[in-house]
């Protein structure tokens, strides 16, 4: 946008960057620092910035199988459950979102825009109000306290937005490409798989990352639907640190760091596509 090289400009630019970075990163940094402090240090005054006696006790405590609380909060289980739920629902969302996105962007049918708009707005209907009816519904389907139930529920929550991102991005791909393939005798399905999908990869990756993060972080519904320790997810584990009687921020920090790690790995690889996919989605409609 600009390529000035005056030192004042550069300094101002960096200064703004530092302010933004401080606001965005400080809370995360503070939590990570806390994860290396001892419980005693966290409870003492005056507040310390750097850990006085850095320790990884908080991390090892999470995986200490001899402690009774690990029977209730088995982190390897929690993480693998969240992983199963997030990955499976992401696959469902991307697959069905692509089918629907194709229809919304490529085909003409009555009520198209109305249905797409309605789907998008349905995201508003997911607050605290629906906890109880959703619990009743899942129970009548016999899907309470099951990972499958959570997978289906999250998929239903995530599909509208994924469909929208994918549809917006498909709209950007010239129809002529597909048409010429069909002229050459390819079926609609073949042209979709061979021509359209490769070009839409950034959008698919965006939708997948988007949904994965949402599913990985969801708490309210998981907390009432899941009962047995074998089925709980990471956010339930994290929330159990907010017991009224105790809050150990070194453990919160350690668990949060662990929980955020898989997502960061996903982002490390997907970042480029993610921005491009969002560009196609929200920028051009």
């Amino acid at each position: 946008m600009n390529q000035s090289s005056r030192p004042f400009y550069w300094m101002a630019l960096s200064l703004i960057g530092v302010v933004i970075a401080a606001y965005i990163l400080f809370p995360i940094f503070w939590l990570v620092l806390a994860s290396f402090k001892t419980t005693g240090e966290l409870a003492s005054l005056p507040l310390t910035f750097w850990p006085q006696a850095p320790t990884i006790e908080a991390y090892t405590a999470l995986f200490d199988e001899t402690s009774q609380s690990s029977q209730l909060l088995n982190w390897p289980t929690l993480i693998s459950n969240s992983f199963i739920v997030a990955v499976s629902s992401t696959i469902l969302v991307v697959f069905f979102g692509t089918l629907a996105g194709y229809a919304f962007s490529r085909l003409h049918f009555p009520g198209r825009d109305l249905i797409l708009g309605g789907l998008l707005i349905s995201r508003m209907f997911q607050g605290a109000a629906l906890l109880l009816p959703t619990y009743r519904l899942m129970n009548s389907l016999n899907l309470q306290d099951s990972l499958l139930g959570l997978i289906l529920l999250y998929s239903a929550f995530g599909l509208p937005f994924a469909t929208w991102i994918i549809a917006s991005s498909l709209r950007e791909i010239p129809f002529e490409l597909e048409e010429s393939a069909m002229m050459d005798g390819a079926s609609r399905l073949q042209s979709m798989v061979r021509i359209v999908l490769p070009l839409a990869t950034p959008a698919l990756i965006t939708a997948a990352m988007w949904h994965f993060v949402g599913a990985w972080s969801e708490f309210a519904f998981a907390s009432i639907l899941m009962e047995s320790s074998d089925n709980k997810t990471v956010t339930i584990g994290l929330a159990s640190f907010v017991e009224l009687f105790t809050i150990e921020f070194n453990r919160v920090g350690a668990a949060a760091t662990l929980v955020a790690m898989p997502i960061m790995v996903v982002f490390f690889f997907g970042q480029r596509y993610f921005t491009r996919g969002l560009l196609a989605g929200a920028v051009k409609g």
Partner: protein
Amino acid sequence: MNRSSDRWLAYFLILPVVAAVLAFVLGPTWDVATLSLTQFVMGQERGFGTLVNFEALWADPVFGTVVVNTAIWILGGTVFCVLTGLAVGAYLAIDSKVTTALRALILLPWVLPDVVTAMAWKWMLHGQVGVIGDAFTRVGLSDQPISFLGDPDLVMWMLVIVLVWRKMPLVALILCAAIRSVPAEQIEAARMDGANAFQRFRHVILPNISFSLTAVTVISMIWITAEFTLPWVMTGGGPANSSQIMSTYIYQQSFQFFNWGVGSAMSVVNLVFLMAVVGLYLYINRRSWAAGGSK
């Protein structure tokens, strides 16, 4: 290509999505709508077809506060998310090593689960043990610890600040992408005409990204409405109901007071209000939708 077969193919392709939303989102919503017209307390149904829940809501002195707070939460949150997102997005759109690095880091708040975000901020903002108040007193900005979440005049805005922290990065990134896709020739032409940076932003960039702005505004509003964990864990509506918003009050009525009818009535009011706001917003901005969506 046959139009009618296209139509059936289209319906077939969108069927799974529509069915899932109908079953898991609209089904429970319908349940809530019916409940709002049912006197349903203490786990017992006491008759359908009554407006008693809405009347109770109307008579509830707290409900007025809740409406005002919800307006701050949703409208204030959306406006601040979009404005700071626009500012940060414009900054990130500049080519520089600093901005490139920041673009990679800025999504971190978004990957942290809500529960953790809420706990961490609550801890940092606490007047006695929090690092932010501590820093304020150390650098001499205030001589007494500030209770950010205990002060009824501050608490709602503190929630908005945390909300912006969590949601703004994504808005910024989307708008940054939009700004970067504005044709460079247009900006250059404006520069040649003697437009300064602000004028270029106002007359060249803004019109070009108006569709994206509308889209992120609506999306932000939808996210913020559905957000429950953040305010509930951070304040639970306190102190003295000064941060009580629709979602926390619905939760309190339904699960703490066992008063599902009133809770459901509030959900219905909430949804109607929201749909009206979103509808109005889309109507006002119909030109940018039409322009962007016609492709």
